[in-house]
C-alpha cells in the first residue's frame, strides 16, 4: 500500500498562502505608500487600489493621476508574476513562509519595459486590476494587465510589460 500524505486542512493551506502573499506585498514600501491590497482566490490575484485623495492628478477634473494608474498596473503585474513564480516552491514547502520578512523576501522580477494604454479617465473611487501572464520563460516574461472601476467590462487602463525573472543564485 502506498503511503500517501494526508491532504492538508483548508485552514493550513489558506494560512500559508495568505502569509506568503502578505509578506510579498508588505515588504515593498511603494505598495504600502499607494495602499494597494490583493484579493486571493486560489492562485488568482486581484489588485485593489482603494481611493485616496493623494492619488488625484488634476484636482479640477478629479481624475486619478496617470502615474498612480501606471504604478497600480505595474505593481499588479510584478506581484502576479512573482506569485506565479513562487507558487510551486510555496506548495512543496521549499519556500519557508515564516522566514519571509523584508530582508529575506524572494527576489522580484525586474521591469524591462511597460506600456500603458489610458482608455478613459480614472474616477475618484476604488480601482481593480488583474494581470495575465502571456509568456513566462526562464529569463523573460510578458504580462498583460487590465484595470477597471465600477464595471469589469469597462476598462479604464490596460498595459503590457516585459520583465526579467529573478535567477536562482546557484
Amino acid at each position, binding site marked *: 500500500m502506498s503511503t500517501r500524505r494526508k491532504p492538508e486542512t483548508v485552514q493550513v493551506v489558506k494560512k500559508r498562502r495568505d502569509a506568503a502573499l502578505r509578506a510579498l506585498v508588505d515588504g515593498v*514600501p*511603494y505598495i504600502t505608500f499607494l495602499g494597494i491590497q490583493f484579493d486571493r482566490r486560489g492562485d488568482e490575484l486581484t489588485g485593489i487600489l482603494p481611493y485616496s485623495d493623494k492619488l488625484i*492628478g488634476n484636482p479640477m477634473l478629479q481624475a*486619478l*493621476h496617470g502615474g498612480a494608474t501606471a504604478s*497600480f498596473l505595474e505593481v499588479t503585474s510584478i506581484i502576479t508574476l512573482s506569485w506565479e513564480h513562487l507558487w510551486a516552491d510555496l506548495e512543496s514547502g521549499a519556500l519557508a513562509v515564516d522566514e519571509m520578512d523584508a530582508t529575506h523576501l524572494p527576489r522580484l522580477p525586474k521591469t*524591462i*519595459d*511597460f*506600456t500603458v494604454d489610458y482608455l478613459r479617465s480614472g474616477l475618484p473611487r476604488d480601482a481593480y486590476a488583474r494581470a495575465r501572464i502571456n509568456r513566462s520563460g526562464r529569463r523573460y516574461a510578458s504580462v498583460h494587465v487590465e484595470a477597471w472601476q465600477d464595471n469589469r467590462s469597462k476598462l479604464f487602463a490596460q498595459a503590457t510589460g516585459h520583465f526579467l525573472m529573478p535567477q536562482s543564485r546557484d
Partner: protein
Amino acid sequence: MSDKLRIAKQFISALPYSGALGMELQELDGGVSVIDMPYDERLVGDPRTGVLHGGAVSALMDTCCGAAVMSHPSNPGGTATIDLRIEYLRAAVPGQRITARAECYHVTRSVAFVRATARDEEDGSPVATATGSFTVEGKR
C-alpha cells in the same frame, strides 16, 4: 524666475499625486519640461537594495510629459495621456534624486507626441526613457 515658471511650479506641486511624490518643476519652456523628484524611502520597490519602484519613475515621466505638452508653443488648452511607454535601462542609485526631461516634439490638432529621459545624479546612461502620445484639448 519668470512669472510663467512660478505659476507652473505651483501648478505642478498642487497636483495631489505629483505633490505626494515631492515633484518639483525646474524648467518649462517651448515644449520642454524638466521636473525632479527627491529620493524617498516610501517609494522603494526593492527592499533589499533600496532601489525606487519603477512606478514612481513612471509617475514622474507622465507628469513631465504632460507639462511639456502644456508648454508647447501651440498652446493646448489641456492634455491627457493616451499612451506612455517606459524603458527601464538600469536601476536608479538609491539615495539619489531623479530628474526627468521631456520634449514635446510634434503636435497635431488632436495629438501631441512626447519623449523623455530620466536620470539620477550619475553621469552616463539615463535610468529610464519614455515615449508617449497625449490628447490636445481645445486651444486657448
